[in-house]
């Protein structure tokens, strides 16, 4: 069931139960104003919510009752017994409809005329028994999703408690490792450890909500507004499954509505103007969300007329916000940024929608209040994009603890690509023209000397470490650190404004050492250091300083786990992206091999034993920098810092060697052999580097709802914009004759003869896509 609807049902039922007493009291004493008011509030709330949720029957019903009650409240009508009876009947009917909704029935157009007639009845006596029975006695409820509402403070408190618990658990685990293993003790600890992890995950999720929640009202808003403005707009929502902190979602609600309204009102042109400009008369509004590093990016794109920087400047000068001289000195970026100045928003605040007008300055203030940022890009006559960057604070962040100078700092683990040591000659640092360039893995990239930045002394380049951060495809930069300590899960809290003003901190945390740690914000540091991230491109330029592939003997940090066949095995920590838990339903069969559905893509799954048929399956998500696969495990995973060397295995299949820990021998899996076990065709590109497949021709809904999931499961990102020239492959259902090159032609006819593929031939489409995929890999 729709989450919003479920919430509405729960809320209405709760209030209905709560005011049941009021109803009885009001029935006895219709003159009681307090009772009348609470009943009025109830009906008013139902009216508001049902309008929002598009439940016309409830809306009509509550509207009529509200009107009648308004008259009573205004003293224009007497609370005659007949009216009281009618109102009570309406409330009963509302409750009955809500019960039906809960059982999955729709808010259908059943007849409520009987009640409307009762409400209309201006005089007359109360007819005992006229109170209608609920329209339908709810049948045994089909296990409704029960929800309660909880103050966020309570969740925070729980979260803090669990965080402390996690920290104590980590400390205990460290202590336990020091004493000789006692099997019973270890087993008991593992049990507790497992529960703590599960509890932490569950509580973290209570704060998280899919951004879908924020997107839900948009289709309606766009439909209503575009018909009002007589514009034709196609709304695309991308990344609905990105999860965001509840509070951030609430904070974003009004700004997003405002931005979307603005885009429709001022961005997208009228049909006539669009045709005159040679554009598709139907405008595109795309709202997308994705996670990038330790931030969530929400982009609102429209292919409208763009924002005119000169007009903003004119207005700003006119209103005395800028002097003419100041205005002349602005570059295009700064001109566009004027849109966020108070009083300069070009929006018309009177609106058909919620009526709550917030200007772009309020949008910026709201976003910055939670440590985010907002920027605007625009191409005159073509498009404008507003990008909201939001932090991921208040959650547990896996971090790398690094030494800079003589202090420890935390760096979010997520964007970190490689950690290499200059002492071991794994990278080279060059200082040219006042800038620092690092050569790591055969790539040149800009580097920032964090030691210099934070302690004022230059890094000792003979001993320092280089961490490379990957923000996007071929977008890497490096940070130079004094030392690298360990990985740790941190509960990061926002820093005070006086510290945030320094512009390089994402939060602060208190690890179990008791000394507070500052969490660095790599993106902000790059910006502060003057790196133009949009210009950073670092393709591989050579083999120098490339990872040798013979890493096993350097690996000291292992992830140890119980494998499906009961054997204790380990993988190098660097190979493990994260540990996942999926329901067994997410395992699908593709080409006779198990795959896991994850974020719309099917990842190949390695399982050395029988997968459970039901319940939850624990997975390790592995990556080799370019591709990902999943590895199913059965038990608790643990990080092991290995003091000894890994003893190489004599030509054992897929086992790189053995490690000894706590007196047990652990098989260390050979990651190279593991990845080699999959044909290229099966591996999907890792992370966001997915090639684009343009879907063209035929019915748009079919492309979006039928074709896109298949395309995405083959490892592509589906794009629909006809103008997208940079697509890696095109699937075309409309072309009159088969095209050549990177085009897969689809046919609506079963067994077509012209080289096209029947549009429901899943296997053939999948195969063709994979073939293109491989071709791309070989040429690119």
């Amino acid at each position: 069931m729709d989450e919003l609807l479920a919430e509405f049902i729960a809320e209405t039922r709760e209030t209905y139960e709560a005011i049941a007493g009021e109803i009885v009291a009001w029935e006895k004493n219709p003159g009681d104003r307090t009772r009348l008011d609470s009943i009025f509030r109830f009906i008013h709330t139902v009216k508001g919510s049902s309008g929002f949720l598009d439940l016309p029957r409830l809306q009509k019903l509550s509207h009529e009752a509200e009107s009648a009650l308004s008259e009573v409240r205004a003293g224009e009508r007497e609370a005659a017994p007949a009216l009281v009876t009618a109102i009570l009947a309406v409330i009963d009917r509302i409750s009955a409809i809500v019960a039906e909704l809960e059982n999955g029935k729709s808010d259908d157009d059943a007849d409520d005329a009987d009640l409307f007639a009762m409400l209309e009845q201006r005089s007359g006596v109360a007819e005992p028994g006229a109170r209608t029975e609920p329209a339908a006695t709810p049948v045994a409820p089909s296990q409704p999703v029960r929800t309660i509402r909880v103050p966020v403070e309570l969740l925070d408190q729980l979260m803090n408690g669990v965080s402390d618990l996690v920290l104590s658990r980590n400390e205990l685990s460290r202590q336990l490792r020091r004493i000789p293993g006692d099997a019973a003790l270890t087993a008991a600890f593992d049990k507790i450890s497992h529960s703590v992890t599960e509890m932490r995950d569950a509580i973290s999720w209570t704060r998280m909500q899919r951004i879908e929640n924020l997107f839900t009202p948009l289709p309606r808003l766009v439909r209503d507004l575009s018909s009002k403005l007589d514009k034709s707009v196609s709304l695309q929502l991308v990344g609905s499954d990105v999860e965001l902190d509840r509070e951030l979602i609430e904070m974003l609600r009004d700004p997003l509505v405002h931005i979307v309204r603005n885009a429709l009102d001022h961005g997208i042109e009228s049909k006539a103007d669009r045709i005159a400009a040679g554009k598709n008369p139907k405008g595109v509004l795309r709202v997308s969300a994705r996670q990038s590093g330790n931030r969530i990016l929400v982009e609102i794109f429209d292919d409208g007329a763009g924002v005119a920087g000169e007009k903003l400047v004119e207005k700003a000068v006119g209103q005395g916000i800028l002097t003419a001289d100041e205005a002349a000195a602005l570059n295009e970026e700064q001109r566009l940024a004027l849109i966020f100045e108070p009083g300069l928003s070009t929006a018309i605040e009177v609106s058909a929608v919620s009526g709550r007008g917030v200007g772009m300055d309020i949008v910026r203030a709201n976003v910055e209040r939670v440590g985010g940022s907002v920027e605007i890009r625009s191409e005159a006559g073509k498009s404008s994009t507003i990008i909201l960057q939001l932090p991921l604070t208040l959650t547990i962040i896996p971090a790398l603890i690094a030494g800079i100078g003589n202090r420890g700092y935390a760096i979010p683990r997520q964007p970190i690509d490689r950690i290499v040591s200059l002492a071991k000659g794994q990278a080279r640092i060059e200082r040219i023209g006042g800038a620092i360039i690092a050569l790591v893995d055969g790539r040149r990239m800009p580097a920032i000397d964090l030691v210099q930045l934070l302690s004022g002394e230059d890094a000792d380049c003979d001993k320092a470490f280089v961490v490379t951060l990957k923000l996007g495809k071929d977008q890497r930069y490096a940070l130079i650190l004094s030392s690298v300590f360990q990985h740790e899960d941190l509960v990061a809290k926002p820093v005070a404004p006086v510290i945030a003003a320094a512009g390089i901190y994402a939060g602060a945390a208190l690890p179990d050492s008791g000394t507070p740690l500052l969490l660095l914000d790599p993106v902000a540091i790059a910006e502060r250091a003057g790196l133009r991230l949009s210009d950073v491109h670092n393709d591989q330029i050579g083999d120098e300083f490339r990872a040798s592939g013979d890493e096993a003997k350097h690996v000291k940090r292992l992830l140890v786990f119980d494998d499906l066949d009961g054997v204790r095995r380990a993988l190098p920590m660097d190979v493990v992206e994260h540990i996942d838990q999926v329901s067994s339903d997410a395992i699908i069969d593709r080409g006779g091999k198990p795959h896991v559905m994850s974020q719309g893509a099917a990842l190949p799954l390695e399982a050395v034993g029988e997968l459970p048929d039901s319940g939850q399956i624990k997975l390790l998500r592995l990556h080799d920098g370019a591709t990902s696969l999943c590895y199913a495990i059965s038990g608790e995973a643990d990080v092991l810092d290995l003091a000894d060397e890994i003893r190489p295995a004599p030509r054992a299949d897929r086992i790189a060697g053995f490690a000894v820990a706590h007196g047990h021998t652990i098989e260390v899996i050979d990651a190279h052999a593991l990845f080699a076990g999959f044909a290229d065709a099966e591996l999907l590109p890792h992370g966001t580097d997915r090639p684009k497949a343009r879907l063209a021709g035929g019915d748009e809904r079919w492309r979006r709802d039928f074709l896109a999931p298949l395309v995405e499961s083959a490892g592509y990102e589906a794009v629909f914009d006809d103008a997208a020239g940079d697509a890696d492959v095109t699937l075309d259902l409309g072309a009159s004759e088969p095209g050549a090159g990177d085009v897969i032609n689809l046919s609506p006819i079963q067994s077509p003869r012209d080289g096209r593929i029947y549009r429901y031939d899943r296997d053939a489409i999948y195969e063709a896509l994979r073939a293109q995929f491989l071709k791309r890999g070989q040429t690119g």
Partner: protein
Amino acid sequence: MTQSYILAETGSVTFALSADKVAAVASVGEITPVPLADSHVAGIAAIRSQVITVIDVGLALGEATSAAQAEPSLIVVEIDGHSYGLAVDDIHDVIEIENEPRSLGAPFSEQWRQIALGVLDIDGKAVIAVDPAAIVQS
């Protein structure tokens, strides 16, 4: 109506802070510095498993630093959901006084102008009452 104030001392000055706004008085061991923040931000420290921002009141007032000593005394205040520790040289007693801070139209020096709420009469001596939020922002 009587009001409670905490009297604190930094460098040569004694000032008063409304006790309503004070969450605790504590001392901390180690303060972790925060590079690139304003100079009056002494760093962050942990008090009762909570990270607080330590403000060097001496520097904020344009006097000598008051966070240099081994275990500075902190007046813990909460402003806009964040906890701050105001590091001072010494914290005296909490006193109850009857009068309200009065501006007296005195031309305070620039450092004080932002943070002074007015002058209190304490045992016949004039003492400046300060606004903790202004100290944090100064």
